[in-house]
């Protein structure tokens, strides 16, 4: 049995500890080098795992504690294509982020590198783990590391507020997770996902299972930031160091979605599968709400990173729709979309980082027309915007089209239209920002209140006059990645097989208990014509909406009144994002309570 799974987590942890020991001897360059090489090694290991496992399933029992009969004594890593794929995405993004951050003046070795490595180890471990409590532990590892990284810019008020909100809400999420574990353990006497599933397969569904599932779902949705658990995200992502944002937006939110899918398909499916239609309705509903909420909020943002943070939320909603369909197609579509849009969002954050590096601010108002001389960043940013609006035939298009096909197959014909709307609005927000910053189009001062002057403090204390290659190169690579996902259809087929493997509980259980799991079959069917219509439509919506909001006033005087009344309508929603931890916690409590009520009423 290959030793890669434990090494992919153990090596970064060990290196992080060593870095902390020897840091007095190291220069910044050396710790950059060590961290990057470690991340690279992890990425290679994850990719090797991905290749090695194909569309099968490989189990690694720590300490050699193989299960006795049906009883899992130790902890296992269950490496399946999607888990290994997510781990690879995480570690690849980490490599790029570390390269990106070599020129960051804020970064102080070695703590930054220690935190980043442990953050990565936590995410890799979470995506490979096959044990519920182990998932919780990895969840904690990555949360705490992320908190420290978000609050890294200690002399910025906004960073501290974001860090505090993030810390408190995610700590609450961890407690909900642990409560859920306690409940399910008392019912099944198991912590191993497959064993839980096996027990539930025979004992069936009851109130304990329902509430345990609810609590765990609430916890992972907090991490993924689905409405109404999402408030912390914008505050945190808007202020984190840009290289950290690459990972937060590109991987951490997806980790939450992955956790939801893993827990459902590997543990709770046998008990709750019977009521799949109800769950589907709940998840898809929450997903669509999140997608539209995030899109609208992104559209009205002035601060660039905050805008991208809401784009992230909107896409979490789309992922949640895909996974929430609880079908193999939905899962594989989400996998492709997570890959493509993970790269894409990371690309946009990288561009934001370059803008901040060059122009030392992030408010669209104050950046108006300032980016004309950034010859390379501009096109990259525009490309990112077009891809956000799922421009055919590239990666985001492929992912969304797969999700939409799955939705139609599951009888949710209205989902594609709403996804089109959401990604269109997100694209409009990004493209408009491009037009304002890099072209100086449209009037300045469209927003009455500029809320973000405090958040636009520069990471590099003053504007730099040239863009270092280590910042540009990752952005270019990310763009290539986003495009490639769509151009090479191999991804779609891999994801289709991976989805098949992921949702197949019988095979998962058999594999965990030592049976050989065959390679999964299945291949993806090429996008249909209406996929091109939906996604092309999204792009058109994006361009049209952007153009309208830039020049609408010229077309007719009505436009201004329209925007006035629209923003007046939107004001209450915006007020909800108050930055006050009490409000956010109240929202979390309400969300969890309502979720529980829904599940009780429908699943029992």
């Amino acid at each position, binding site marked *: 049995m290959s030793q890669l799974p434990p090494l992919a987590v153990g090596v970064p942890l060990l290196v992080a500890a060593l870095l902390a020991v020897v840091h007095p001897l190291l220069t910044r360059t050396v710790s950059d080098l060590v961290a990057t090489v470690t991340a690279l090694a992890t990425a290679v290991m994850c990719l090797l795992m991905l290749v090695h496992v194909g569309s099968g399933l490989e189990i690694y029992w720590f300490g050699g504690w193989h299960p006795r009969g049906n009883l899992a004594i130790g902890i296992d890593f269950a490496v399946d294509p999607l888990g290994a794929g997510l781990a690879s995405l995480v570690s690849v993004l980490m490599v790029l982020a570390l390269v990106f951050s070599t020129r960051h003046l804020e970064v102080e070795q070695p703590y930054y590198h220690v935190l980043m490595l442990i953050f990565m180890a936590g995410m890799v471990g979470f995506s490979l783990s096959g044990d519920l409590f182990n998932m919780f532990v990895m969840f*904690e590892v990555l949360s705490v590391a992320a908190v420290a990284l978000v609050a890294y810019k200690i002399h910025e008020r906004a960073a501290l507020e974001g860090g505090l909100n993030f810390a408190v809400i995610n700590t609450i999420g961890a*407690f909900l997770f642990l409560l859920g574990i306690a409940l399910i353990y008392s019912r099944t006497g198991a912590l191993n996902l497959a064993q839980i599933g096996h027990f539930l397969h025979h004992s069936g569904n009851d109130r304990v299972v329902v509430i345990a599932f609810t609590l765990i779902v609430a916890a992972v949705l907090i991490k993924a930031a689905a409405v109404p658990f999402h408030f912390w995200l914008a505050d945190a992502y808007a202020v984190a160091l840009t290289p950290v944002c690459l990972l937060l937006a590109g991987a951490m939110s997806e980790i939450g979605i992955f956790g939801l899918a893993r827990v459902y398909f590997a543990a709770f499916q046998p008990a709750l599968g019977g009521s799949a239609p109800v769950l589907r309705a709940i998840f898809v509903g929450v997903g669509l709400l999140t997608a539209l909420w995030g899109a609208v909020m992104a559209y009205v943002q002035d601060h660039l990173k905050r805008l991208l943070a809401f784009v992230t939320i909107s896409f979490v909603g789309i992922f949640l729709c895909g996974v929430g369909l609880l079908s193999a197609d939905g899962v594989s579509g989400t996998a492709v979309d997570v890959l493509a849009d993970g790269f894409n969002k990371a690309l946009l954050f990288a561009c934001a980082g370059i803008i901040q590096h060059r122009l030392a601010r992030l408010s669209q108002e104050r950046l108006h027309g300032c980016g004309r001389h950034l010859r390379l960043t501009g096109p990259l940013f525009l490309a990112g915007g077009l891809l956000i609006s799922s421009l055919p035939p590239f990666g985001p298009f492929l992912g969304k089209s797969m999700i939409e096909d799955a939705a139609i197959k599951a009888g949710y014909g209205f989902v594609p239209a709403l996804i089109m709307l959401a990604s269109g609005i997100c694209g409009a927000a990004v493209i408009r920002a491009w037009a304002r910053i890099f072209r100086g189009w449209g009037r300045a001062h469209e927003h009455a209140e500029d809320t973000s002057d405090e958040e636009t403090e520069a990471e590099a204390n003053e504007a730099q006059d040239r863009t270092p290659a280590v910042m540009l190169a990752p952005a270019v690579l990310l763009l290539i990645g986003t495009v490639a996902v769509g151009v090479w259809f191999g991804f779609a087929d891999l994801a289709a097989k991976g989805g098949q493997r992921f949702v197949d509980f019988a095979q998962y259980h058999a594999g965990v208990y030592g049976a050989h799991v065959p390679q999964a079959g299945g291949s993806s069917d090429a996008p249909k014509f209406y996929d091109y219509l939906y996604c092309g439509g999204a792009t058109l919506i994006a361009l049209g909406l952007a153009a309208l909001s830039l020049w609408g006033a010229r077309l007719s005087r009505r436009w201004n009144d329209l925007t006035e009344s629209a923003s007046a309508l939107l004001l209450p929603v915006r007020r909800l994002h108050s930055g006050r931890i009490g409000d956010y916690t109240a929202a979390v409590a309400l969300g969890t309570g309502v979720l529980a009520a829904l599940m009780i009423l429908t699943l029992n």
Partner: protein
Amino acid sequence: MGIYPYLVAAWLAGVGFYGVITSRNYVHLVVCLTVIQASTYVLLLSVGFVNGGQAPIFADVPSTSVVVDPVVQALSLTDVVVEATVMALLLALVVQAKKRFGNVDPDSVNRMRG
């Protein structure tokens, strides 16, 4: 009466949430988080309890005697210490917050973020 411990755990969680939501002082808020955390331990340990069971430590009891569940104890044992340092991290954030905004009121964020 057979579910009283579970109800206590639920109560702790509710009270802690209430404290976090209504808190006007970050230190108080962190303390309320430790209350929610206590509920998880109470729940874990009470679900693993067995009437008349001994502690699962066979230094002084024969290895055949009935014992309570050691797994839940292992889970909470590590967590107790770990969460203490997480609280320390939160307190460090609070101290910094005090330095930066000069107060520790979670509601002091005075501008609408949108």
